[in-house]
């Protein structure tokens, strides 16, 4: 709303300044993991050169606009004690690098997996007494993208041992199960038919390292669980709730499939 009323020139200036600051801070001193590791390939490599350069260009990447909002939210005090994320974590650029690359994780308090979205809401509940942000809302996508971006270039590195192990197995089974009226498993597309044309799409390995992504054909940002729901619905299978234990287990398994690939958030996809 605010954006609509602000004159375009000011909006652009403001946006560019903010993006320049963000871009500068991320470029400094970070190593960039390769887009292909031992045959595991980022979705980036399946995009056209035009889409890739859109992602690479901090000023044109359509996903960057939500990052500005994420930073506002990081600094915004909410709840009775007037706390913001920054009250405790300070500068996200200093405190959050590497975090997104490790999620989802086993959380003893929840006695289950939590991903970044759920962690954000848990922080709001425990430390700010603020209500949860709705899954797939602009706000939750914005904060998730902003935090994920602090790990840009860092290799995906999720723990699948110890208490995470049964969830990993559950996710693997989900991945390999044929589902829906089209009776297809994730792997039948994202392992067995990589690089083939499915109608207008080229099937990638279905990796998560770019998320949250901006999907050009939808003109929207989307979370990892949203693409799971979409891929389920595409084979005419009943999707699960975003944030459900089923999708969390799947997220762990799929993240592991892409171990070593660079966090790219916000990636740009077809």
């Amino acid at each position: 709303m605010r954006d609509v009323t602000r004159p375009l020139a000011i909006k652009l200036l403001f946006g560019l300044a903010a993006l320049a600051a963000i871009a500068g801070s991320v470029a400094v001193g970070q190593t960039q993991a390769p887009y292909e590791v031992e045959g595991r390939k980022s979705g980036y490599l399946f995009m056209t050169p035009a889409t890739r350069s859109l992602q690479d260009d901090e000023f044109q990447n359509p996903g960057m606009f939500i990052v500005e909002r994420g930073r506002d939210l990081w600094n915004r005090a909410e709840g009775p004690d007037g706390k913001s994320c920054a009250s405790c974590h300070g500068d996200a650029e200093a405190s959050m690098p590497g975090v997104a690359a490790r999620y989802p994780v086993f959380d003893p308090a929840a006695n289950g997996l939590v991903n970044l979205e759920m962690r954000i809401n848990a922080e709001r509940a425990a430390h700010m007494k603020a209500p949860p942000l709705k899954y797939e809302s602009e706000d939750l996508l914005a904060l998730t993208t902003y935090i994920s971006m602090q790990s840009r270039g860092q290799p995906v590195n999720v723990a699948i041992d110890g208490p995470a192990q049964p969830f990993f197995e559950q996710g693997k089974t989900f991945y390999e199960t044929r589902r829906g009226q089209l009776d297809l498993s994730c792997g039948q597309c994202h392992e067995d038919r990589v690089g083939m044309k499915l109608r207008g799409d080229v099937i990638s390995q279905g990796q998560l390292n770019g998320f949250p992504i901006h999907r050009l054909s939808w003109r929207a940002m989307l979370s990892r669980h949203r693409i799971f729901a979409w891929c389920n619905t595409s084979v005419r299978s009943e999707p699960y709730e975003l944030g459900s234990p089923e999708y969390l287990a799947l997220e762990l398994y799929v993240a592991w499939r892409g171990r070593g690939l660079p966090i790219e958030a916000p990636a740009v996809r077809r």
Partner: protein
Amino acid sequence: MLELAKTILAAAVLALSAAACGAADLAAYRVENGGVAAPLTDEPGNPARGRQIVRDMGHVTCLICHRMPIPEEPDHGEIGPSLEGVGSRLSVAQLRLRLIDSKQVNPDSVMPSYYRTGGFTRIGAQFEGRPIYSAQQIEDVVAYLALLKDK
């Protein structure tokens, strides 16, 4: 020999699954020699209608996976073989079985079964108990495919 054994097995599996799932509202059919010889309906298939149906997104268009001689449609898929000339390669009976339930031709097939209601995992609620094609649509599409002859 192997083919024949497969056919018998497939028919047996089908009989079992039909009994178990009570797929009573589907027209009965018999699999013989790798095909279904008898039409599912009394009304002969209409190839013009068939050409329309195969393009329809709401009916899992074949174009997701196949190249077809339908130049007005963009983005033909490459998951399965091109269907140009398929009417010369396969008999009408083979085409009918392929459409009804491709898993009976090849258990590992990724091609959907267009006329089957049982044996799915977590099928979307709105698709439960409803095959992708009606019996008449199967006949229409078979009639269309049969006309796709080699030039």
